[in-house]
């Protein structure tokens, strides 16, 4: 008897839980960037990567220094940033407004959702000539293009977010005889906020894409114009300098939204 007990193997139960929950890890994102740049630098220096296929990162860095010292950097960045700010703010706020109306009123939903679905897949850049006719060749048409491009995805994500608000909370509000306005402002809007913010991440990235497209089609200054000039001369260093500026804009936008998520959505478990 005791033999058979001894013969039984003892071992710890294998761990198979964990994972599937995003945790905040610092520095990993940055080190991916740094490694990539170092590899490129080493590759282009050693000749393993030809200078024609990829610019040397340090050369791109020098291009930045030139841009800075000549004052051209701000000359290109400032108009772009202001176009992005005006266009995206207009588009996103209109989009959130219309999205909420669609979420709240069945008639507006019935009327607008097909329309939104119809214009969503249209590449907005194709409409730039139309905007130029409507608003003129100057800034307004660029604002309009960016605003329009931000508007549709924001509408879709916003009414989705409103639809997803926990109905039992709304029922609770009604059971305490809260006014319609109170239910909307104190239950529906805060409840839709997570969805609205994550939708904005997508819409604002689209806004940056459209900003460049609009500037490529007609602007003297702006990152899009700068990239276009560089591209037509096959000046890869300047092209990449422009691309880096765009990426920085993208990261900044994402960080701003992340900040708001932290501030506004701390209640999420």
């Amino acid at each position, binding site marked *: 008897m005791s033999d058979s007990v001894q013969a039984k193997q003892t071992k710890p139960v294998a761990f198979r839980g964990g994972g599937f929950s995003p945790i905040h890890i610092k520095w990993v994102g940055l080190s991916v960037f740094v490694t990539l740049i170092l590899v490129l630098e080493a590759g282009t220096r050693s000749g393993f990567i030809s200078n024609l296929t990829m610019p040397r990162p340090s050369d791109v860095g020098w291009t930045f220094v030139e841009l800075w010292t000549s004052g051209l950097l701000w000359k290109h960045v400032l108009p772009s940033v202001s176009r992005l700010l005006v266009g995206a703010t207009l588009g996103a706020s209109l989009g959130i407004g219309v999205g909420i109306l669609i979420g709240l009123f069945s008639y507006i939903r019935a009327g607008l959702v097909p329309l939104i679905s119809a214009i969503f897949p249209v590449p907005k850049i194709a409409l730039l000539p139309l905007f130029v006719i409507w608003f003129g060749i100057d800034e307004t048409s660029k604002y309009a293009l960016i605003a329009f491009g931000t508007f549709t995805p924001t509408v879709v994500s916003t009414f989705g977010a409103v639809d997803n608000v926990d109905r039992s909370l709304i029922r609770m509000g009604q*059971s305490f005889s809260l006014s319609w306005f109170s239910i909307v402002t104190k239950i529906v809007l805060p409840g839709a906020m997570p969805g609205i913010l994550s939708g904005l991440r997508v819409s604002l990235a689209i806004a940056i894409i459209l900003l460049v497209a609009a500037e490529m089609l007609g602007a003297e200054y702006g990152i899009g114009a700068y990239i276009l000039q560089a591209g037509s001369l096959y000046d890869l260093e300047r092209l990449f300098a422009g691309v880096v500026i765009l990426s920085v804009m993208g990261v900044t936008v994402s960080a701003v939204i992340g900040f708001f998520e932290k501030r506004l959505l701390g209640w*999420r*478990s």
Partner: protein
Amino acid sequence: MDLRLENIGHSYGDMEVMQGMDLEIPAGKRVCSVGPSGCGKSTLLRLIGGLEQPTTGRVLQIGEPPAESLNPLTFVFQDFALLPWRTVEGNISLVLEDHGIRGKQADAIISDVLARTKLTEFRKALPKQLSGGMKQRVAISRALAVNPAVMLMDEPLSALDSQTRELLMDDLVSLWTREPFTAVYVTHNLHEAVRLGHFIVVLSRRPGRIREVVAVDKPLAERELGDADLEQTQKYLWNLMREEALAADKELINV
């Protein structure tokens, strides 16, 4: 304020959920309603509270609610229904703001109801920081804040473990003994029903009808865990329910 249900019937599409219900809910009494799952207990409560309209019949309010009652028919939900983005205090002030009660006056009410539910230290906590039992106590204090004439409670303890449930039941008993309120209390737990109810309304399987109304006369304060006569009533109720549940099972097989 009394409530009277006259010939209440309700259908969702083709499915008849309840029919021909007549019931009196006298002021100051606690009416518990038990019945097999899906017999329409929650629906009945929503009909009484005006969150849904009955297909036939009507719910009548007899007499005026007390003047100090801000929200005469007040729900306590099974899933607590707390706003996760508001603190405990904020969740209670939510239901006061619409009545123009703010500032000091609101503070006083909030302090009072939190003291009554023993939550004073948790005033600034967010729902995610609270246990299930505490969340339900917050929901109960929110309901108390509007001075309900009738509390409509839909399985308020069902999401909780049995120890927490027992403790919270004691809390409900002491709340009621200190300041009696009228209540309709839906549960599938017969033990809760005999512990808390003046009357126990036994509903039949779907379509729900009133099968029997059982009165429990023993005063609330004297009812205790494991009382012989309460056990007796509970057993009697269980036999009624079992017939319904068995019959419901058979119907499913025959379909």
